[in-house]
């Protein structure tokens, strides 16, 4: 218990490399929200995101021996993103789907769950906008979506995002630009929907 509170990432990694499963689980507890949220934004489906996050941690445990130091969070997010990419590829292969919408039935496990503390009107408005925005994200190519989610949704700096995506900050900047251009065109197709969000905020 004390280890969870006081032990640094480096110490937990070192203990995990020695086969200490509780130490690794301390890392899991520390970063599972970040990993899960990345998965859910990349896959657009809660159930798939749960599976992907669990598989990511399993893969990370197997690969902990090869971790050579650095930012543990970036390393875990990189594994999770790769897991999501593989999951999409596997589903596409299995279902021979031509669009991402066909891969996951988003109606079964929608990403956005209304916050019951809000008024019904606000709840409906926020849920509709969030759902529409998530759907817009799913229209982006995977690399652009990953960059947009990491930078704009989750708020990570460009340098860390470049490490997670195994590329350069310049490439991330380019993907962000193209992703935002595409999202802008999608937003323009639904001005009423996104306009309602802006009106409620102002």
């Amino acid at each position, binding site marked *: 218990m004390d280890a969870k509170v006081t032990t640094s990432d480096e110490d937990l990694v070192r203990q995990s490399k020695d086969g200490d*499963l509780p130490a*690794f*689980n301390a890392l*899991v*507890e520390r970063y*599972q*929200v970040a990993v*899960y*949220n990345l998965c*859910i934004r990349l896959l657009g489906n*809660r159930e798939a995101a*749960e599976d992907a*996050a*669990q*598989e*990511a*941690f*399993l*893969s990370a*445990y*197997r*690969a902990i021996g*090869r*971790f*050579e130091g650095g930012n543990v969070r970036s*390393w875990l997010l*990189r*594994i999770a*993103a*790769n*897991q999501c990419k*593989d999951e999409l590829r*596997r589903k596409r*292969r299995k279902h021979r789907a031509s669009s991402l919408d066909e891969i996951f039935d988003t109606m079964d496990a929608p990403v*956005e769950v209304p916050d019951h503390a809000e008024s019904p009107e606000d709840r409906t408005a926020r849920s509709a*906008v*969030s759902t529409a*925005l998530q759907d817009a994200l799913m229209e982006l190519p995977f690399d652009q979506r990953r960059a*947009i989610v990491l*930078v*704009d*949704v989750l*708020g990570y700096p*460009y340098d860390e995002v470049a490490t997670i995506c*195994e590329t350069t900050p310049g490439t991330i*900047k380019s993907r*962000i*630009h193209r992703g*935002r251009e595409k*999202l*802008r065109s999608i*937003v*323009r197709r639904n*001005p009423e929907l*996104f*306009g309602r*969000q*802006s009106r409620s*905020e*102002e």
Partner: protein
Amino acid sequence: MRNPLPHVLRRKTRWFHQADAYVDGRVTPVERDLFEERLEESPELQEHVHETRQLKQMLSGLPEHPAPRSFALNPGMLAERERRKAPLAPRVALQLAQATAVVSIAALVFVGLFDVSSNMNGGAGGNDDAAVPASGDIESANGGNGSGGGADGAAPLGTTEPPGDADGANGPEAFGDDAIDDGAEGSADEDALPEDDRSSGESGASGTEPAGDANAQDASPDLQSRSEQPETGSGSALLYGGLVSLTVLAAGVWIYAKRWLAAYS
């Protein structure tokens, strides 16, 4: 309050590209000043910056989801994961298929080159020296083929370079890539092939000599090689056919093994 504007034609200038960096706060003070000067002059750019800020605000406003459960691992999960690991057979089949395909393609190329050089030496009606370049070609071809070890069966699985690779998911494909690289380094079989070809090549080269050489000692090898030429020709065709068939078979096994492995990933 502004609604998102309908689509407006915009020129793709560097200012619009820089708008992302400006909104993200990733510009130097000098760049910021220059950009803000431009911003004051261009209503289009102002609208673009506004839209970018609005979009970024919407995206950052997407709710953070709490973890639905703990993703902590337990020994049962790890055991299950091991059980789900692909069996040895498809991995071995994939390795063998890749190595076979690479070797047979390399052999095809080598045999083709040797055949061409033999024909060229024979067509020139050369002297004994014609045999030397052929041998030299063979030796240089041998030297060009490395003697690297075969793919390490156990190690590549899960040991691909980036630590971020999802081990089980990326394993087969990365494994395949490693095996391709290792297979390209060649094997011992390539060493055996040139010796056989060398002997046939030398006889083939000397077989084109008789036009300029009246030496009795050379006559009988010439006669022998002349009589061997048709057999050599059909032998080459057989060899080509065999290598092509082997390549096609290896490709088929390769595809099947990959699909078999994919079922476990």
